[in-house]
């Protein structure tokens, strides 16, 4: 039986990596990810986790070392945040393109300048197109559950793609809360050993990372796209199997009191919990409001999003990142585009908020919903509104 413990989410992540018996951790400390890698280093130092902890000199090298370790067939894990993810940027593409199944947790953080160590999704959005499988989480339990799934999905012979688990910096990473950690035997049963099909091995030499002239580059990218799309079936199956084993269920788009609601709010990450509280309150007041939570960010769940919003009149989306000079929040613009060809589609209203660690309270979400409804009726001169900014 899984044990219910009070533990800081960052430490639980490290404990889950230990349960997954990772072989190599290469990491560089950055707020608010530090507690994850500190605890991993401690687990290795204590002999509780038999892994190589490589204290690299930068995030660029962290991800690069992960590539190397993964390429020899090692189960590989790292964690980063904000600027660290930015410094990894080009390496992220390599991990996905070369199909190296690295698993990473990202304690989501705003981007400089000005420097901010606090949470938002600017870092997530800047790595949107890197070809990684990306999953949002809203509490510690979801983080560890999806981290467990991440190893299985990444290393699945049908997938072999890196996976990023997003958790909001501080709001999730630094929270001590109750959660269930599985028993080692349950983990062993749930994730088979990593059997990378073409590891670097002198017994069977392969060339990895050959370069592609124009005559073949498009084919490599088509293969990558097809592979990432196809991973969705494996992800869904993994969540289903996870539910079967652990009685906690995940899906690409999750809903809360959204059945038949004319107005839908969509959020991702830890803010979804506050949003739920707001929806509770508004429902009690008799308002026809529901909540959607985006869990699977890549591959993007087109079908599920269309299904989830098809009966709504208004869809209000709160992004925690800005696309400067662009069409509004990145998640919103994707969803809008996903709905463009639909016969029946809600009006899509874009808000950006919670930047650089700014909290949004229950009252804040109420405002967003009410204002969203208002905009849907009267229209707005702006493509999107930034919530809670002092004018």
């Amino acid at each position, binding site marked *: 039986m899984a044990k219910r413990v009070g533990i800081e989410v960052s430490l639980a992540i490290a404990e889950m990596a230990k349960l997954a018996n990772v072989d190599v951790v290469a990491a560089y400390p950055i707020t608010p990810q530090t507690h994850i890698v500190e605890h991993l280093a401690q687990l290795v130092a204590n002999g509780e986790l038999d892994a190589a902890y490589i204290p690299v000199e930068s995030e660029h090298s962290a991800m690069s070392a992960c590539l190397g370790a993964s390429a020899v067939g090692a189960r590989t894990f790292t964690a980063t945040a904000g600027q660290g993810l930015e410094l990894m940027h080009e390496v992220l593409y390599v991990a996905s*393109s070369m*199909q190296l199944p690295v698993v990473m947790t990202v304690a989501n953080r705003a981007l400089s300048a000005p420097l901010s160590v606090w949470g938002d999704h600017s870092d997530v959005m800047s790595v949107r197109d890197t070809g990684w499988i990306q999953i949002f989480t809203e509490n510690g339990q979801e983080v560890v559950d999806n981290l467990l799934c991440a190893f299985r999905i990444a290393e699945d012979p049908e997938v072999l793609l890196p996976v990023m688990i997003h958790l909001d910096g501080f709001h999730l990473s630094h929270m001590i809360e109750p959660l269930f950690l599985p028993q080692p035997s349950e983990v062993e049963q749930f994730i088979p050993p990593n059997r990378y099909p*073409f590891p670097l091995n002198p017994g069977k030499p392969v060339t*990895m990372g*050959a370069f592609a002239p124009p005559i073949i580059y498009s*084919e490599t990218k088509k293969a990558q796209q*097809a592979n990432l799309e196809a991973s969705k079936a494996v992800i869904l199956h993994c969540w289903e199997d996870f539910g079967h084993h652990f009685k906690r269920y995940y899906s690409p788009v999750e809903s809360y009191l959204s059945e038949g609601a004319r107005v839908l709010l969509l959020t991702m990450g830890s803010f979804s919990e506050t949003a739920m509280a707001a929806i509770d309150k508004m429902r009690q007041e008799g308002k026809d409001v529901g909540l959607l939570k985006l869990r699977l960010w890549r591959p993007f769940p087109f079908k599920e999003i269309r299904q989830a919003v098809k009966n709504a009149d208004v869809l209000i989306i709160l992004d925690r990142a800005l696309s400067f000079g662009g069409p509004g929040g990145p998640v919103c613009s994707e969803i809008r585009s996903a709905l463009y060809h639909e016969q029946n589609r809600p009006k899509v209203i874009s808000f950006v908020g919670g930047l650089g660690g700014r909290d949004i309270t229950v009252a804040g979400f109420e405002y967003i919903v009410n204002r969203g409804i208002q905009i849907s009726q009267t229209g707005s001169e702006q493509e999107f509104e930034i919530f809670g900014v002092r004018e």
Partner: protein
Amino acid sequence: MTKPESELTWKDLEIGSIVTEPGNASQYQTGDWRSQRPTLNHDRCVKCGICSIFCPEGCIEQNADGYFEANLFYCKGCGICARECWTQAITMMEEEE
């Protein structure tokens, strides 16, 4: 034999575009880059093999008679072998001659 790139479809690619056939570049002819070819004067050759060690292509091989001859499928005609041959047994000839 590896399929030429112009015939490969995306489905032909191995995961991560890995190349699983070691050294298959040896199918690729670099000999047509050459504008001059090394020719060996067997009388002067002492079969020391110094030409083979200095060949950037690694295409100079010892034949059954013990002479070192450039494999013209690969030889790009740099002339290092001729320059480094201390018995001056190798001369570079224009391809047209």
